[in-house]
């Protein structure tokens, strides 16, 4: 992220001043959980709720940056109108919220100290607050563009600004189909199919209702839920996630039971195998004896 900003800042200062300032975010997409601010515990997803931003503001050509001003972050649900001043210093907030056009824009949080024209230590914001400022409804089922704008305000009207956009993805993928489970030692292997970006499975104990999740993989056929109790029945469902990490509804449920398993060595020993593991002394003695015999014969004239 910082590298991208540094690349942006590598532009000549005059070019930056004449163009739009830049904002670099820790994500390009906000999903439903991030929109609502509520982690999706049902699927065991733990998306960050923090939007971390770095920026560098472009200044109105008539001013120079100083530390007396403040930064303000605005979020809007439509692209702000251009051509409002030179440069478009007030574009974040004009036109003002308008029921006629549906334009909604609001400041996110309080004014921030503006210690430098380029922010290189990320400023953090609550994602749901950003979405709320832009007037989006998290229960919608479409994707939308969130317009971000950082203003630098020194006294009166803004004299510097930086813009960027994020995608708000409120779509959900189709649920995968769980075809079978196979048992391992404290483990259930999930075999499912679907057309989603990633998959995750959840096992719920029928004995004590404890919940266990698989790793999240791009292949539905390799999900593994471990840490289970052998001999206990578990109800397993799978979820598909889209690229924004929005989960599908649960798949069909299949019940499975992990079992104690024997690896090859354990099976060999249970069958009465005589090897004791390690480097057996008898074999070592035999090998040394053979080597000594060779050495002795070699020394003979």
């Amino acid at each position, binding site marked *: 992220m910082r590298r991208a900003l540094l690349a942006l800042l590598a532009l000549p200062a005059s070019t930056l001043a004449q163009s739009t300032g830049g904002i670099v975010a820790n994500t390009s997409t906000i999903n439903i959980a991030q929109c609502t601010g509520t982690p999706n515990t049902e699927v065991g997803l733990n998306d960050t709720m923090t939007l971390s931003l770095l920026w560098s503001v472009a200044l109105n050509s008539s001013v120079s940056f100083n530390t007396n001003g403040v930064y303000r972050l605005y979020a809007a649900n439509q692209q702000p109108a251009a051509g409002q001043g030179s440069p478009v210093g007030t574009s974040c907030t004009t036109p003002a919220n308008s029921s006629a056009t549906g334009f909604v824009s609001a400041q996110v949080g309080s004014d921030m100290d503006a210690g430098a024209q380029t922010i290189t230590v990320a400023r953090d914001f609550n994602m749901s607050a950003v979405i709320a400022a832009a007037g989006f409804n998290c229960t919608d089922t479409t994707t939308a563009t969130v317009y971000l704008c950082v203003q630098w305000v020194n006294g009166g009207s803004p004299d510097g600004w930086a813009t960027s956009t994020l995608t708000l993805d409120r779509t959900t993928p189709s649920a995968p189909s769980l075809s079978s489970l196979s048992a391992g030692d404290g483990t259930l292997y999930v075999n499912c199919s679907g057309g989603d970006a990633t998959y995750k499975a959840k096992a719920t104990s029928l004995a004590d209702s404890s919940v266990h999740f698989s790793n999240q993989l791009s292949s539905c056929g390799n999900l593994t839920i471990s840490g289970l109790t052998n001999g206990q029945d578990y109800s397993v469902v799978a979820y598909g996630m889209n690229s924004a990490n929005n989960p599908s509804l649960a798949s069909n449920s299949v019940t499975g039971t992990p079992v104690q398993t*024997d690896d*090859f060595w354990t*099976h*060999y020993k249970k069958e009465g195998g005589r090897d*004791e593991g*390690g*480097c057996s002394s008898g*074999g070592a003695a*035999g090998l040394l004896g053979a080597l000594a015999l060779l050495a002795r014969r070699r020394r003979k004239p």
Partner: protein
Amino acid sequence: MRPLARSALAGLVAGMACVARAQAPWGSVEVGAGPYVPSIDREFGGTATPYRDIFGGSPAPMFRAGIAKAVFTGQGTVEVGFRTGFYTKSGNAVQSTDPSVKTSDRTSLNVIPTSLTVTYRVDQVYDRLSIPLVPYVRLALERYNWWVTKQSSWVEKGATNGWSASVGAALVLDPVDPSAARELRSEVGILHTDLYFDLTKDWVNDFGSTRSWDLSNSRLSWSAGLLFVF
């Protein structure tokens, strides 16, 4: 001796002189592979088959690479060398309460075979008779370091010693492309490039110890590969 026979013998001797190798070999390097099935089940005398239960009966390749130094280059070449390699076989772990049921947990047997070898190559067959086939015999002290895993975690490890005897032949490839052979000789120092095939009987059971399993190949095994004589 009849005149015809004398002439033939004289021609053969002359031919032998013409193709006599001008340079004694330093040694050789070989890479190869062959099928391997350890005889672990042998100790049970048919009452149990733990190896077959998990890994089945099909062989998996055992890869080998070795280097040997020529210590005698008179009538043929005697080499002493060192070989190592790798073998791995994976299967499904079995259910503890019912070993006849395979589970989805994976378990594997891994072996690193190392050998100290003494090889005698009858390379005068090629050097003097121009027959591109070099028979050889080999005796080796073997040490198989092995370990068993379950779901990529170590379960047990150990080492089993033994010895082996091989007989084989190396097909000299130089006549296939003499110009390439000359380039290899002048630029890399490879005197001959051979394709070898050998049969091996091994006894890798800690010299008959009653406390060791048997990692000998379950049958008279073969291996094949490339041999570079320097």
